[in-house]
């Protein structure tokens, strides 16, 4: 079912800052780039009544998410003058303060990079079949809702 061209976006657990740095450093050879826009999602220690969120456990309908991400990628590239775009989303447990989403767009000019990144983040949140289970410190849970 999955198209061969669908790139994997899933990272087991949190996305380390060193991974982000490596990703940035790899673009030094692409000297037509003038601007990078990056969005990072970080797990918040939300207080819900008596409970505090300690982590989010992410699950996904992986093959469907990758197909959909491939569509989103094609749409974004047709809409904005981008040099490249990279998307990574955590799967499994990500503790508060850790990074769960990394969207990285690069372009000759800043405006396309910024607009594409913002657009892509919105689409990821609303269109990818991914679910976050907020695990409380007392090990209870509730399911995350996006707004």
């Amino acid at each position, binding site marked *: 079912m999955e198209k061969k061209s669908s790139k994997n976006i899933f990272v087991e657990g949190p996305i380390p800052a060193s991974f982000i740095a490596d990703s940035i450093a790899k673009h030094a050879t692409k000297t037509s780039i003038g601007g990078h826009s990056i969005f990072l999602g970080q797990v918040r220690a939300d207080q819900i009544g008596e409970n505090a969120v300690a982590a989010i456990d992410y*699950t996904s309908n992986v*093959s*469907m998410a990758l197909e959909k991400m491939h569509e989103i990628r094609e749409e974004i590239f047709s809409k904005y003058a981008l040099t490249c775009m990279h998307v990574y989303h955590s799967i499994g447990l990500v503790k508060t303060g850790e990074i769960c989403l990394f969207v990285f767009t690069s372009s000759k000019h800043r405006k396309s990079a910024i607009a594409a990144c913002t657009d892509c*983040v919105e689409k990821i949140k*609303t*269109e990818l079949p991914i679910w976050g289970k907020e695990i409380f410190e007392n090990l209870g849970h509730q399911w995350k809702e996006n707004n």
Partner: protein
Amino acid sequence: MHKQISICFFGQLTDITQCNTLAIDNPGTVSLLQNLLVRQYPNLSHSKYTIAINNKMVIEDQPIPENAIIALMPPFSGG
């Protein structure tokens, strides 16, 4: 045996079903499947979800092909 289909539950739906997947005989159509699932898991009737057959979203009632993989998906909450 090859008349079976697989049902995959995601997100908060697994709190109701207590399982991620289920293999059942093909009931024929999406609406017949939904009737069957609500009998087995009455709380599903209070849940909001979309259905995909073989990774394609289901818009209206339709036949279920043999060996289909059916996904029941509550609202997405990635990021």
